[in-house]
């Protein structure tokens, strides 16, 4: 049983178009083609997978994505750099702060803007909160797919704490849009750090609760161990990223490998798996939540003072108080609001570690006040790509477990 579950052959290009469901061989019973999705609860969004079944065994699969394609890359070309921030959080709607930071870091790289330390720390806190919320949501929904109904409610309760903090800080529970080129839009409100401290205090116990429910649970282990195995070589070859890559034992986390936003100053570990199966992906994500709490505590303890937005008036709005005193500030305000700022000609690639892996923005500028081309490298897209190979030979029920373990967000896949 175990051997058939593991994709033996290395990842190669898929079969020919006219033989999407090749290679042909005689079925034990008869071929059945099954549409999983687009409205299947375990696809978490709108994903359609055409499965070719031989009884309960999956022989081939053809994921059909694009149902949530909204043309964000095209929309970016019509909006100034500041306006574009609001598109970024709508792509991966479960970790909006991380998308916000990813987008502005591409613009900051293009413009060579330095971000004040306080803004960096605020970004780190918002990003790590988002990571915890996203992993919580994943725990809840992936568990739900496999029949862990109670876990869903616990996960939702804990995620709610993060959404409350998002709301207290940015006024919005999910689409925070809190970054600006050169910093963040607002300073932290009064009482927010106390709220965060309470969160940091309460969360370890709640993760323990979760782990006591699942980590050693024989049914959970049976459903996940040895299912959807990716060796480290295959994981690199398939281009997967984030917890999926690390569960296969590849030590690659953007926060460690290419630190941004001051991550080099935080003391944390990158949890790794070794089996590369669904269970290891679960273990890695839970361990990452604990590491995120460590980062949050350090960020809170060493929160720097000072400005939260760059004083470079070419890209950042002047403070409100200056407007009544300085003509120059009024001019800057007017220019920035009416036409934004122009970037130099060139192309840059900036990337951050989202809960799903490396989220990259390839920004091409022709010298105008908006991107000439904005290509997003979405981690969910890269993680979903090997689905075809991973499900070959498994049982239909395992497809649910494998898709659950990938933690893809269709908004991020389709953009």
């Amino acid at each position, binding site marked *: 049983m175990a051997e058939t579950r593991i994709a033996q052959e290395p990842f190669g*290009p898929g079969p020919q178009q006219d033989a999407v469901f090749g290679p042909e061989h005689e079925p034990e019973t008869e071929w059945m083609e099954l549409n999983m999705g687009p409205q299947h609860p375990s696809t978490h969004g709108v994903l359609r997978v055409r499965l070719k079944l031989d009884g309960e065994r999956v022989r081939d699969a053809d994921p059909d994505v*694009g149902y949530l394609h909204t*043309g964000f890359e*095209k929309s970016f070309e019509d909006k100034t750099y500041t306006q574009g921030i609001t598109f970024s959080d709508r792509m991966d709607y479960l970790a909006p702060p991380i998308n916000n930071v990813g987008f502005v870091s591409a613009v900051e790289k293009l413009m060579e803007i330095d971000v004040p330390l306080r803004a960096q720390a605020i970004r780190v806190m918002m990003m790590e909160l988002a990571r915890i919320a996203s992993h919580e949501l994943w725990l809840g929904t992936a568990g739900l797919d496999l029949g862990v109904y109670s876990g869903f409610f616990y996960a939702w309760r804990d995620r709610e704490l993060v959404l409350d903090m998002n709301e207290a800080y940015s006024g919005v529970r999910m689409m925070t849009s809190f970054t600006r080129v050169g910093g963040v839009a607002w300073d932290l409100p009064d009482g927010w750090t106390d709220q965060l401290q309470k969160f940091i205090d309460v969360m370890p116990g709640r993760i323990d609760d979760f782990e006591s429910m699942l980590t050693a649970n024989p049914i959970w282990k049976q459903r996940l161990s040895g299912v959807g195995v990716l060796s480290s070589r295959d994981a*690199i070859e398939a*281009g997967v990223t984030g917890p999926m890559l690390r569960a296969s034992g590849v030590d690659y986390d953007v926060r460690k490998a290419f630190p941004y936003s001051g991550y080099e100053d935080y003391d944390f570990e990158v949890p790794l798996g070794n089996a590369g199966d669904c269970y290891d992906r679960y273990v890695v994500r839970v361990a990452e939540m604990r590491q995120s709490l460590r980062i949050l505590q350090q960020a809170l303890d060493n929160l720097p003072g000072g400005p939260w937005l760059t004083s470079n008036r070419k890209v950042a709005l002047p403070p409100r108080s200056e407007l009544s005193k300085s003509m120059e500030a009024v001019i800057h305000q007017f220019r920035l609001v009416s036409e934004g700022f122009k970037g130099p000609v060139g*192309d*840059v*690639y900036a990337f951050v570690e989202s809960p799903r892996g490396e989220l990259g923005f*390839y920004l091409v500028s022709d010298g105008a006040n908006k991107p000439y081309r904005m290509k997003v490298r979405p981690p969910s897209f890269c993680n979903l790509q090997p689905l075809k190979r991973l499900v070959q030979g498994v049982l239909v029920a395992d497809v649910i477990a494998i898709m659950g373990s990938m933690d893809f967000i269709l908004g991020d896949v389709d953009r």
Partner: protein
Amino acid sequence: MSADALVRRIGDRFPGALQESSDFRGDLSIVITPEAVVEVARYLKEEEGFDYFLYATAVDWPARTPRFTVVWEVRSLANKTRVRIKTTATMPDPHAPSLTSVWPAANWHERETWDLLGIKFDGHPDLRRLLMPQSWEGHPLRKDYVSFGEPVIFSDQKLEGLEPDAIRG
């Protein structure tokens, strides 16, 4: 491993293939002639350790000839370096070599590029549209494709006298 040294090695190894290289904000880009892209890519993967594929895309410059810049970016996980491979594709039927034989992970990225920008990747095993419906006409990320004013056509209607290109730009 410095970027300059890498560019020099590529230039020595593939004379005539390297058209241009640039280092902008620490991002190394090399422009390769279309014929040599696959060879250079294989060299980068097998001998320079660029094992991890990041993304593929294209940029549309309607006023330029050749009109499209096709872009692939890859990383070496061990050396922590990145390189952006660029080549060009000309209208009216833009083609570029597929790098799926070197980095299988390029599969969906190239399909997306075909779908949204209309670059045909020669040697791609499964070049179908990815995000748009299979019956879609036009390539939305091209600059001459208007992003608003789409007519809604129901399945039982026809827009008479209008070519699809005229409708969608």
